[in-house]
């Protein structure tokens, strides 16, 4: 039997790794990769809680995960569109150089 804690730990670790990627990488697309990892970690958490809940017939966890899929897809598409648009304008994808909101 795999206890719930293992799944949750896995999700937490995946989340942290994704966070590390977001904070550290210079390329904008790479940052979005990190975001994807974090979303997947969340999904794992949701499904795990469904699986280990007492009412398995209420599919709330899975439905939530499906919604997260949809949201992630939407976010990735718009985000990459933005990155591409910024690349076209500024000719760079280094996140540090996209600092027009600087003081």
């Amino acid at each position, binding site marked *: 039997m795999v206890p719930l804690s293992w799944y949750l730990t896995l999700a937490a670790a995946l989340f942290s790794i994704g*966070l590390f990627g*977001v*904070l*550290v990488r210079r390329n904008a697309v790479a*940052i979005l990769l990190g975001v994807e990892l974090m979303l997947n970690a969340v999904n794992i958490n949701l499904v795990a809680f469904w699986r280990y809940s007492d009412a398995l017939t209420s599919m709330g966890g899975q439905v939530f995960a499906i919604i997260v899929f949809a949201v992630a897809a939407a976010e990735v598409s718009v985000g990459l569109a933005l990155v591409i648009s910024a690349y076209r304008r500024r000719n760079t994808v280094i*996140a*540090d150089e*996209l*600092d*027009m*909101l*600087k*003081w």
Partner: protein
Amino acid sequence: MSTELIIWLLPLPPVLAFFLIILFTNKSKALSHTIAVGAAFLSWLGAMVVFFRAVGVEHLAEHPFASSINWLPTGETYLKIGVLIDPLSAIVLFFVAWCVLMIFVYSVGYHNFGQPAGDHDHAGLPPHGATVHGHTVPSVEPMYSRFFAFIGLFAFGMLTLVVSDNVLTMFVGWEIMGLCSYLLIGFWYGKESARNAAIKAFMTTRVGDVFMLLGIAFLYSVTGSLSFHDIFREEVLHTLASVPSGVFGLSAAGLIGLLLFIGTVGKSAQFPLHVWLPDAMEGPTPVSAMIHAATMVSAGVYAVIRMFPIISLDEKTMTVVAFIGAFTALFAATIAVAQNDIKRVLAYSTISQLGFMIAALGIGAYVAATFHLVTHAFFKALLFLGSGSVIHGMEHGVLHTGNHKVDPQDMFNMGGLRSKMPRTFWTFLIGGFALSGFPLVTAGFWSKDEILADAWAHGHTVVFFTLAIAAFLTAFYTMRQITLTFFGEPRTKEAEHAHETPWTMTTPLIVLAVFAVGFGWVGMPHWITGGLVENWFHHFIGSMLHEHSEELAFNIVPLATSLIVALGGLAAGYFVYRNVDSPEQDKLQIPVLKNKWYVDELYNVVFIKPATWFSEVFVSKWMDKGFIDGVLHIFGPTTGGIGSAIRNYFDVPIINQLLGDGSAEVTWWFGKNLRPIQTGRIQQYLILSLILLFVVGGLLYFLLMA
């Protein structure tokens, strides 16, 4: 129309005339004098109706025409004012109405109505003549309408005083006349002498008025009423006589009487408050006639006669009254002898004659004093108007010759006017004889004789001799005046070219002359006609007194004295001055007399100079400019100092620099140092927010879990 209503309405026409002229008809001379003379005529008409009705009433003194209204609420009762016509006020009303009307008519001619406007005439100065076809003719007075307005107001004041039934409205009329005397004496306000004379008149009578007001206040506080009916009741008089007032050992009645008498001393120009009357000759002659003959000075004597029941209660007051009256009579007569201005002689003559009346009241001769008051009003008004006529004639001569240095009022410039101005001459002669007491045919004789008779009969010998000497001097200076003015040859070219004045001026003279002759006969003593003709005047006026005064029996001494002094004085005056042509030949030009016994100079040193010093130096310079302004001058710099101190030590360093600039500095410093946080880099933002999350989360976790 009921008599009471007429009496209420008597003062109304002149005051209406005043307002109408002032407000509406000032520009139109004809309309103004029509309104004024019309008003005087209406009042005269009403007065005559009232007088003849009053004379027809039996025992008018007990049942006078009276009407009063509640006026001033004082607690539970009212102060009432109203009108009263008893024998005294009826007779006074008679002569006031006649004199006022005559003077109003006279003024039309005096101010040259109908003449052209002058060449260089200014309002405020006497008119100086206009050039018509190369001749200089008299010009019309520029302030014509104003004059009629003022004398209308004057008439209102006098009528109010005469018809009033209480001391308060009497005093109101008194004061109105005081104001009008100021306005009219200073009528030609462009002349400095006129301005000063007006102020002098007002101030001097004011001194008297203050004491009179004190007397009225005291009277009210003791008796609780000011109405004649109330204060002359037996029990009230008894109380007044017995209550001591604490001043000079006088009873209440004595003090009240003395204070009221001081008011008369001012108004009727008795010594020592006589100084204003000669200076008041600055006003136009109708004014002099009005003020000094018919109305104002008579008002003073009327007040004493009216208040006689109170004044007579105290011996000391009566002595004071008699003394002042007799002294003034002699004093003024001595001055009149040395005066050269035709009006000044008459002025001092008025003072002297008023002294006669006051003295008569002082010795208790109530009826005699009243009689003399009435006759004096007629012949003095006549004399003043006559002198005005003379002056007008002389001015005509001055305009003719063009020599304006000649004083048309100086008697030594006149002479021989008898032929040039006959009507003026004859009326003036009648007036002068009346003043001197020419026997039998003049009113003055009867009234003056009665005073002397009273003095002799009641044993007041000092008063008797003083008045007799004064009467002699009166006749003397009167004849001097007539001789110098009318007899002999004209002494100057101007006198040669004088001519008679128009009918508006001579007709009043004639009317007054009739009264000056005839009025005396209503008061003849009964023994003259052997008891056939009653002394109507004595009975009429004598009924005013509570104890009916006996008519005097015949006594040769006063009668002889009167005859001697009158005829002797007239004769002496004529023979001495027949041949005097200039002041150098006049032996009586003694400096002391000419300078009025230096009374004015004395007052100047004793009163005027200290008062001027007090106001100019003490009050104005030291107190006002020095002290008060000094205090204020401390405020200014002090406030300025405080202001700049606050500015420099508080406002600028603390508020401006510390708070204002300081807060700006701090904010800028914060901004400068916090700005680099915003780098525009998302990853840095994320890191920062995570750090913050940990910090806050940790705090919350450990605080809440603990």
